[in-house]
Every structure is written in C-alpha cells, then in structure tokens.
C-alpha cells in the first residue's frame, strides 16, 4: 500500500485510484497516420525509475491527477517536485488533467 497526493483531496490510499498510464505525447488526430496513432496508443517507455504518470481518483474527486512515481520503490511525489524524470517526461502542452492523458475510466 502507498499513498498518492491528490491536489484536490490530499494524501489518499492508492486503492482509491485507478492507474491511467504514463504520460506521453499525443500526435495530432487530424494529421496522424494510423501507424503513428497506434504507436502512440500502444508503445510505452515502461521505465524502471522516476516516471510521470496519470491516476484517476475514482473514489474521491473523480478527476485525473498527475504525479511522479518511482516504479521500483513505488515512492510517489507531486507532479511539480524536483528534477524532471529521466525518461517519459511529457512535452509542454500535455496537461495531466486532460482526458487524453489518461484515456478515460475503464
């Protein structure tokens, strides 16, 4: 068990959240080829270390929340903490709260 700092609700248990995926650059839907779109859909950095990712606070504020998590130790810190992760850092323009960063509730 670990806790996730929700910017709206405070520190909450991970069981209240659904993992919505690592943050990655979405190609422009108007111009992307099907291959580019599928690569965006499926390919992941899947890094072992600090990553930026989106969680959905399903048993709380029901909003998408961006955090940094260390995927080996499961330490979590707010999205705006410290040095940027080595990989999978999202380019400017992707907002952790935007539905496209998470893919919607399952």
């Amino acid at each position, binding site marked *: 068990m670990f806790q996730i700092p929700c910017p709206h609700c405070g520190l909450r248990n991970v069981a209240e959240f*659904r993992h919505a995926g690592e943050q990655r650059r979405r190609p422009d839907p108007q111009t992307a080829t099907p291959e580019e779109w599928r690569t965006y859909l499926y390919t*992941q*950095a*899947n890094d072992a270390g600090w990553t930026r990712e989106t969680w959905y606070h399903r048993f709380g504020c029901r909003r998408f929340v961006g955090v940094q998590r260390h995927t080996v130790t499961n330490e979590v810190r707010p999205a705006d903490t410290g040095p940027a992760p080595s990989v999978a850092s999202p380019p400017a323009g992707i907002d952790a709260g935007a539905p496209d960063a998470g893919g919607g509730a399952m």
Partner: protein
Amino acid sequence: MPSRQASARYSAFGLLRRGLTHRDWPRVWREHDLAPAYDAVIIGAGVHGLATAYYLAAKHGFTNVAVLDKAYVGGGGSGRNTAIIRSNYLTPDGVRFYDRSVKLYESLAAELNFNVMFSQRGHLTLAHNDGSLRTMRWRAEVNKLEGVDSEVIGPKEIKRLVPFMDVSPEARYPIMGALYHPPGGTIRHDAVNWGYARAADALGVQIHQNTEVIGIDVRAGQVRGVQTNRGPVSAPVVLNCTAGWASLVSAMAGVALPISTHPLQAAVTEPVKMFLRTVVVSGSLHVYVSQTDRGELVFGASTDAYPSYSMRGSLEFTEELAGHVLALMPSIAKLRLLRQWAGLCDMTPDFSPIMGITPVEGFLLDVGWGTYGFKAGPVAGETMAELIATGKTPQLIAAFDLARFAEGRLVGEKGAAAVGH
C-alpha cells in the same frame, strides 16, 4: 566441443548408488570464461532462453551460443510462476501454438533425461455467469477444431471432479459450468529450467550467470554484440528472452515496445493430504488453485492493478485471494498460508507475446509473455531457434510479430489469458 561423461546421465541406479555413497554427484552445468565472440547471444537464462539455446544446439547444430543472465538460472518468471500447463486458448493462432508446447512438455523428461514431473491432472476454468459460459463454449469449439481436448461441463460433473467445491446455486458466485481441459496440468518449473540448462550445457552451449547486459551495440541498423559487466561480447544475433526487463533491454538496442510491467503475486499454503486433483481456475474471482505433489495448495491471481518493478507482496492481495478462494472452497478456511511472492509480468495490449524480428537486424525478441510465459517455454525455444538458424520466421509465430501493433493486427487473447492459468 567438450563432451560429457557417460556417468553423468541420470538413472535410477545412479541415484541409488550416489544416494548411498554420496560420492561424485555430477555437476549439472559448467562455468566458463566469457569468450569475445559467439554466433548468438541469448539474454535471460529462464525457460525461454535456455530452451532456445537447447534447440539451437540439438536441432540445428548451433553450439557456439552464450546464454547470459544478470542473476541465476530460472530466478525470474521461470521460477516464480504457478507452473500450470494448458493449451485451451481462444484464437486458433494461440491454440496451435500452446498445443505444440504441451506436446513438447509431454516428451520433455525423456528428451532431457531430467524428471520434470509433468502431471496432466486436468484443468477446470469455471464460469460464474452467462458471458463467461459463452466464452467457454467458444473456446471449447475452437479447441476441438484444432484437435485439442476441451469440453464444457456442468456443475454435477464439476462436483464429481472436485468434491470440495461449492457448486450450489446459493453460492456467492454460483458456478454455472466449466471448461474442462484434460491434458492441462502442473509441472515442476525448476526442473524444466535445470533440465534445459543441463542438456544445453552438455551440447556445448555456455551458460553465464551473474553476467548482466548493460548495453547492446548497434551499428548501421545491425546488431554487433553486447556490453556486459564482465566485458564486451560480439555476436551477429542477440535475442532478448527477458521477462520483467524486456522494455529496458530492448531500449538498449533502440527498440521501443508496447509493454507495461506488472507484478503478479502468488501464495502457497502448508501441505495437506491430497484432495484436489485438478487445476481450478476462476476468471471472475481472479484466482487459480492447484495442489502440489507435496500437498501444498498453490494460489495465483491476476496482476497488480498498476505497473511496477517492485516484487514486494501486499496484504491487500492476501486478503482478496483468501476471500475468493473461500467463495469456491469454504472447507479450507483453516489452512494457513506458508508464504507469498511476486514475479514481474510484461503485459502487451492484446495478451499475446511479441516474437521475432525487429527493425534492428539481428536483434530478436521473445518477450511480452504476460502471465502465460512459462507454459510456452518449449515451443518458444523451438521456434526462436528455428528463426535464428534459418533466418525465416516459422509460421507458428508469424502472428506474434512486433509490427502487428503499428499495423493493427492484434491477436486478442484476453478472454483466455487474463486470469486463466
């Protein structure tokens, strides 16, 4: 090629003699200095890597092969799985592939001269609602068309096979039927790893434990070799056979994968007298149960809900598991858990593996095995060995190529692979 003494062959007589004298137990495999070059380097000394090395040597005469592992033989997914073997998949591609693996497992003990304790005790996948019963019927029909023994049975027959199961309509999750797969069963997974390692070693393959790959050399789109903590090794073919670290190893060659790594936890109880003959799986309850020859009940579940490289067990898992198992078999409530552990599963979007060539020439993949890699070890080894030796992708794995994701040709096995071990 160094040859093995005839006395190293295992036999009942040899066991009796050495058991009484405790003298000259043969070494199972040897240690070597790392050579500067090999014809092929295989990363990962689990069942997939070792089987590939064995079939390369045994079927294709490729013996200048090194299997590298950052830790020890069979210490990853190959030694952490719940050792269930079956071939009752959903897609014709999946059924053909896993059926070949069951066939190889059936003759493995004789072929490797190593008792792998394959016990074809039958495999039951329970259906608790109309939706899963429909999928069971679908799977049964696909299985029969591919010549695999599977049938849908009702609660009465389930009760006959597993008398301890609560099949009453009043159960919390009533059992409406099950997919019964008689050739399915369990195996001793360590014996499979050790058997392949010993047989490959006897044919001249070098197994290097504690040898971590820290880089992969690629020049002009062609793989040239690997960098290890024991020095560089050059090779025209490098095969990634890792589980849990598939994304990280492939990234060294510049190949991005559609994989997310999830821990999967399992647990085992104290040993009791044999009462559960078949393997029992419930997809709806996210649990599978089998009893080992020692009498312990082995429980597995679905993967943890979020990706992680952590292999720590969790209390949530144990509580949920116990609740689900008791919903099926209330009579085992007094049994105590002996231990729990976790392994890493590389999940792909379609619950099928990624096998074959990559955009980097000579860099091959046998990864993305999710929660079903162990049962596929022999056939994965056989087909990857054929690919390395002939340069042609065998028909059996053609559907599992990396390019299928960008090209939109997914092989959807979630209905048969998500929990059904």
